[in-house]
C-alpha cells in the first residue's frame, strides 16, 4: 500500500510561517447578522401561497396495498356476491363486518375498534386510483408523483415550499422507511437542494451522528469553540463570504440539534398514561405506537413533514389473519395519535394522511386473499382543514373501480399541497431547463373535502 508521504522536516514546518496569517477572533456572529450578511438558510420558514389550516403533515404509509374492502370501503353488494362469479371472476365477500360509527354513521370495519371512535374526524377517500398495480412503481409514484423518473418526494417539495419552523430539527423526517421499493428515493430531494431531503430515523435509534461517543458535552463544546474560532479567523482573512458564514452557522445549529433531537426522541418524557394509550407497553402495538408518539413529538416541535411506515399489507392471502394483525398493530396507536393531537389542540392544523400504494380486488385469491387493485381503493385524511365524518368518492358496487369523485395520486398530491396552503401549479423548481412540479401536468384539488 502506497501512502501519501509524510517525510517533511521540522525546518519545512517552521520555515513557512511567512505564509501564515495573523489570527484575529471575531466576536460571535448571531444568525440574524448572518442573514444580514447575505447568507440565507434554505430551511427558514416561508409563507404559503394562501392561507391554510394545515401547518404540518403526518403521513402514515401502509406499504403493500391494504384491502379497502376489509377496512374503509363498505360494499354490501360484495357481501351478497361472495362465492359467485362476476364476469368470470370469483368474488370474495369481505372478511370483516362494517358498522356505523359516530354521529356521521361512517361505516368502518370491525378490525378498527379504536379508530372507529374517531369516525367523525375521518374523511374517507373511497375513490382513489393510481397508474400502476405493481408495488415499486405505485409506491414511488405515491411518494414522488412519478414512477418513470427520479423526482423529489412530497415531503421535500413541502419543505422546499414552506421551510420549517424549528431550526434545531430537520424539516422533513421519515421514521423506519423501507430500503426497497425506491428506498431513499421515496424521501429524497432529487434535483431539489439536498437540504430538503428527508432525515431518516429508526425506532430505537436516534438520528445518525447526533451524539459523540468519545467526548463529554463540555469537552465537545470546547472543541466546537476551537472550530468556530478557526472559522471566524478564516472569515476575517477572506472578508465577506456567505459560505464560510454558513459553515459557522451550521455548527451552532448542529450543536443545538444535538440536544434538541435526543430530547424530542426521548419517549421517557411521556407519562405512563400516554405510553399506554399509544400501546407502547404491548408487544403488538409497540413499534407503530412508538412511531406515532415520535410523530406527535416531532409535530409538536415544529417539524414540517413526518412520515411513519408500517409494512406487510400485501394480502394475496391471509386477510383473516395477517390483515387483522396489521390492524391490531396500528389501530390503537393511530387512534391515540388522533386523541392526543386533539387534546393538544393540534389536530386542526395537523394533516393526517393514511394509506398504501393501492388497494385490492373484489376477486378472491388463495382462499382468503385478494389481488392488487390500482383502479379503486381507499385512503383517509383527518384534521388539518379537511371535513370529518364524510366519505368522499366511491368505487363501483363491488369495490373494483373508482367511479365517483375519483382521486388519482396526482389529485391526492394537489389536495395535500392545497391543504398546506400551496398551489400545486405554482410550486415549481427549475431544473434542466424547465419548471418541474410535484404533480407534473396533472392534479386536481378535491375541493369537496376542504372544511
Amino acid at each position: 500500500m502506497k501512502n501519501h508521504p509524510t517525510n517533511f522536516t521540522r525546518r519545512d514546518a517552521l520555515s513557512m510561517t511567512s505564509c501564515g496569517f495573523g489570527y484575529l477572533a471575531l466576536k460571535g456572529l448571531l444568525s440574524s447578522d448572518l442573514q444580514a450578511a447575505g447568507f440565507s438558510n434554505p430551511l427558514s420558514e416561508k409563507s404559503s401561497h394562501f392561507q391554510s389550516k394545515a401547518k404540518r403533515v403526518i403521513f402514515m404509509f401502509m406499504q403493500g396495498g391494504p384491502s379497502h374492502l376489509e377496512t374503509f370501503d363498505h360494499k354490501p353488494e360484495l357481501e351478497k356476491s361472495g362465492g359467485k362469479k362476476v364476469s368470470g371472476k370469483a368474488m370474495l365477500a369481505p372478511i370483516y363486518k362494517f358498522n356505523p360509527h359516530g354521529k356521521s354513521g361512517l361505516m368502518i370495519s370491525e378490525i378498527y375498534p379504536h379508530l372507529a371512535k374517531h369516525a367523525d374526524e375521518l374523511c374517507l377517500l373511497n375513490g382513489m386510483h393510481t397508474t400502476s398495480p405493481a408495488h415499486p412503481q405505485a409506491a414511488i409514484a405515491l411518494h414522488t408523483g412519478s414512477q418513470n423518473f427520479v423526482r423529489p418526494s412530497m415531503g421535500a417539495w413541502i419543505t422546499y415550499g414552506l421551510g420549517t419552523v424549528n431550526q434545531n430539527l430537520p424539516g422533513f423526517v421519515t421514521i423506519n422507511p423501507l430500503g426497497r421499493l425506491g428506498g431513499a428515493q421515496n424521501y429524497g430531494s432529487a434535483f431539489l437542494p439536498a437540504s430538503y431531503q428527508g432525515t431518516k430515523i429508526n425506532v430505537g435509534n436516534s438520528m445518525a451522528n447526533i451524539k459523540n461517543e468519545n467526548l463529554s458535552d463540555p469537552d465537545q463544546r470546547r472543541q466546537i469553540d476551537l472550530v468556530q474560532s478557526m472559522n471566524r479567523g478564516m472569515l476575517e482573512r477572506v472578508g465577506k463570504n456567505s459560505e464560510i458564514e454558513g459553515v459557522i452557522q451550521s455548527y451552532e445549529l448542529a450543536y443545538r440539534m444535538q440536544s434538541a433531537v435526543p430530547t424530542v426522541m426521548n419517549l421517557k418524557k411521556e407519562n405512563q398514561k400516554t405510553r399506554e394509550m399509544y400501546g407502547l407497553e404491548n408487544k403488538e402495538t409497540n413499534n407503530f405506537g412508538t412511531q406515532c408518539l415520535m410523530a406527535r413529538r416531532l409535530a409538536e416541535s415544529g417539524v414540517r413533514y413526518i412520515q411513519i411506515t408500517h409494512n406487510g399489507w400485501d394480502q394475496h392471502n391471509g386477510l383473516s389473519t395477517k390483515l387483522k394483525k396489521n390492524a391490531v398493530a396500528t389501530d390503537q396507536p393511530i387512534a391515540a395519535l388522533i386523541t392526543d393531537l386533539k387534546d393538544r389542540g393540534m389536530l386542526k392544523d395537523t394533516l393526517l394522511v393514511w394509506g398504501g400504494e393501492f388497494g385490492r380486488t373484489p376477486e378472491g385469491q388463495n382462499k382468503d386473499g385478494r389481488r392488487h387493485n390500482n383502479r379503486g381503493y381507499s385512503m383517509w385524511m383527518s384534521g388539518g382543514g379537511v371535513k370529518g365524518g364524510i366519505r368522499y368518492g366511491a368505487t363501483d358496487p363491488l369495490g373494483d373501480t373508482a367511479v365517483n369523485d375519483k382521486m388519482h395520486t396526482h389529485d391526492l398530491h394537489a389536495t395535500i399541497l392545497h391543504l398546506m396552503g400551496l398551489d400545486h401549479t405554482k410550486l415549481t423548481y427549475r431544473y434542466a431547463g424547465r419548471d418541474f412540479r410535484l404533480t407534473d401536468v396533472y392534479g386536481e384539488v378535491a375541493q369537496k373535502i376542504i372544511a
Partner: protein
Amino acid sequence: MKNLFLFITFIFAGLGAYDAKAEELTTEGIAFFEKSIRPLFSKHCYKCHSSSKSENKGGLVLDSQSGWMDGGDSGPAVIPGKITESILIEAIEQKDSDFAMPPKYKLSPSEIDNLKKWVRIGAPDPRDGTPVKAATSTINIAEGRKFWSFKPAESSTLPDVKDEDWVNDPIDRYILDKQASKKLIPAADADRATLIRRVSYDVVGLPPTPEEIRDFVNDPATVQVALKKVVNGLLDSKHFGERWGRHWLDIVRYGESVGRTRNYPFPFAWKYRDYVIDSFNNDKPYNQFVIEQLAGDLLESKDNRQSDEQHIATGFLAMGSMDLNERDKEKFQLDVIDDQIDVTGRAFMALTTGCARCHDHKFDPIPTTDYYAMAGIFKSTDTLSGYGNRQGGGNKLNRNTLISLRDKQDAPESSKPVKPSKPSAREVKLHDQVAKLKKEARSLTDRLQNFRKAANSKQKKVSANEPKKFNPQQTQQRIKQIRNQVKRLEKQLGNLTNERSNGVTNSGNLAMGARDAQNISNCKVRIRGDVDNRGAEVPRGVPQVLTSKQPKLPPKSSGRLEFAKWITEPSHSLTSRVMVNRVWHHLFGKGIVRTVDNFGHSGERPSHPKLLDHLALRFTGEMNWSIKDLIRTIVMSHSYRLASQHSENNYAIDPDNEFFWRANVRRLEAEALRDAMMSVAGTLNLDPAKGSLVQKLKAGEVGKNGGLQSLKSFTHRSVYLPIVRNYVPEFLQIFDFAESSSVIGRRDITTVSTQALFLLNDRFVIEQSNATAKRLLSDERLENQEERIAGAYLLAFGRTPSGAELSQFRKYIDEAKKNGQAAEVAFSGFIQALFASAEFRYAL
C-alpha cells in the same frame, strides 16, 4: 325551433360551393355562426375546450377560429366544407364510443344538424385571436439559429489592455477587458502556498504533500516557471484521471445499479468508470472520447484491446436508471431512449432535448420531430445493460444482454484488426422468420379474441367476417406452437448476435454497452409522449437548429456513428463550447455560462461570450481537443492565480464575482474531502481499486440481498467507492454528491448542519483523526508539541500556524488533558477540529 331551423337551411341552401378563406365571410355566414354555433360551443364544449382552461382536453380549443383549424392531438377538428373529413362531426355523431363528444351525453339532433350545416357551408367563424396551445409546431428554425449558442463560434480580435505585464495568456485580455469596463480591479496574486493547494486539488483532487509545498514555495524561479513545473507534474500523475474522470461520471449519471423500482446491481459498470479515468489520463482527444461513448462499437480498432475499450465506452448509453418493473415493453424501451437522448443532449451539448418528448420544446427551437429523429437512432440500437423489463422477480442479470469482451486478461495481446461486423445472412433470415411468425400469432390472437367476445355477448352469428369453420381450440394450439417456435428461434438468434458483436460468449469478461439492433427503423412521434398515440414517422436525424444539412445516415445502421461524428463537427460549436465551459467551471468554481448543462434559452447567457468562443476555437484548433492542454492553458493564465481576498469596491459593483475579480472560495467535493482526510491520516491507498465492491453483491435487488458490506475497510480513493443508486456512501451523500440518475455538471453546494454533525461525531472522522494523531505523535522528527501542531497544520492546510493560532491550539490540548483526556485523545480532538474547520473544507 324546427321552423327556425328550416328557415336557416333555406337561407343557406343557396350558398353552394364554398371557399374557405376567412376574409370571404359572408354576413349570413357570420349570422349563422353567432346564432347557432357560438352558443352551442359555449354550452357544450368550452368547459373542456377553451383556451382559458389550463388543460384543454386533447389539445383542442374551440373558442377561436385557429383553435379548430389547427385542431388538437388528432389534427384539425374541422375541414371546412367537408363533413366526412371533419373529426368534430365524427365525434358529435358518437358512432365510435372511444371518440364520442361530449363525453357524457349526446347533442340534440338539431344541434348536430346545425354543426354539420356549419361545416358544409365552410365553417364561417368571425372570431380571431390566437389559441393557447402548442399541438402543432410553430417553431421557426431559421429564427432559432440566431440564438448565441446555436451559432458557430467566432474568433475576435484580442482586446487591448492597459497593463500588458498582467497578461500571461490571451484569456487574461478578455478577463481584464471586462473588468476594466466594469471598473473592477483584479485581486492581488495568491501566495504560493495557497496557489499550490488550489492547483493540486483542482488537477488531482488531493492536497499537496509537504515536499511539494516546500519545493514550490522555495523555488527561486518565477511563479510562472515554478507553477508550470507543478502543473505538468500533476497532469502527468495518474491521479489526474481519477479527479477529472469523476467530474465526467457526474455528467453521464454514472451508477452501479439499476435504481428505481427494482434496484439490481450493475456488476460491470466499473469498467466504464475505469475507461473514463484512463481516457483522461491518456489525454484522449475529447472528440474521440465523445464518439467512442456513443458509437465505440461501430468503430474499427487495431486490436482486441482497443475493440474492448471502445465497446466499454458505450456503457455510457446503458447505465441509466430504469424502471425494470414497467410492463409495457415499448414504453420501457422509449423510457430508456429518453434517458439516452437526455444524457446525449445535455452531456455533450448542454441541450435539453429531452423536453421535446411530449411537445415542442417550450423555450428552444427543438420540435418534437427532432426528438423522435434522435429516438429513431437509439431505437435502432440495443441497449445492453444486462437487464430487460420482465415483470416480477425474474430479472436476472442476463449475459446475452451484455457485451462479451474479446481480450482475455492473461491471453497474449492479439494484433489482428477487428472490424465491427454486420448481421450475417443467417441472422437476417432468422429475424424475418421470427417477425413473420409473430405477425401470424398476433392476427390469430385477434381473431380468437373477437370470436370469444362475440360468443360472450351470446350472438348467434359468430361474426360476419369470421369464416364458419373457425375453430378456437385449434387456433389456440397453433398460437401456442408459434410461441414455442419463436422462443426457440429467438434464442438461436440471440446467440448469433451475441457472438457477432462480442466474439466470445463463454468468458466472464463482460461489459455494459450498446450495439446496433437487428431492426433499423425510424421512430414515430408519440403524441404528448403517449406510447400508444402514434403520429408521423420521422426520419432519423439530428436537431435541425444546429445543422442546415442533415448527416447522411446509412439505411442499415443505427446512425449512431454519424450522429456522434456530427456532434463533434465544427459546423456547430456547442460541443466544444460546452466542454470548455465545464473545464472553466471546475477551475474557477463557476462557468462562463453558469448553467453548465443548459446552453438553451432557459439557461444563462455567457458572462464572457468572446472568451468562450476564443477558448472553444483554440480547444478544437491548436489544442486538437486535448483536455490536458486546455487545463494547462487556463491554470497558467494570470486570471487563475488571483487571491480570494474581498474588496469592498469590487464587491459593490459585482457581488457575485461574475467577472472573476478574485478567486472563488471553493468547497472541496465530497470525494476530495474524504481523500484529503485519509491522505492527512496516512490511511489512503493511492493505488487504483481493482473492480468494484458491487461485484460482491449477491444477485437480486439491492436492499433485499443483504446490501453492501461495510465500507470501513475500503481505503482507496473515493472515485472507486461503489455507487449503488439509493445506497450512495453516506460521506458522499452528505457533502452533495451528484444524484446518480441525472446529468449533473454542477453539483449543489449546501452548507447544512448534518455536515457539521458528521464532522463532529461520525466514527469515520474520529478514526481518521486518531490515525493522524498517532502518526504525528510517533514521528520522531517532531520534537515537541509546537512542531507536532505545525506538522498537522501543514498536512491539513498546507501552511504553518501563526503564533496566535499555535498558542490557541496548545491551550486547547493542555486543557483537554487537564480535564482527564489522554494525550492521544486530546491531540486527536485538535486534529478533528482541523478536519471540521472551514479552512480544511475550502480551497482558497
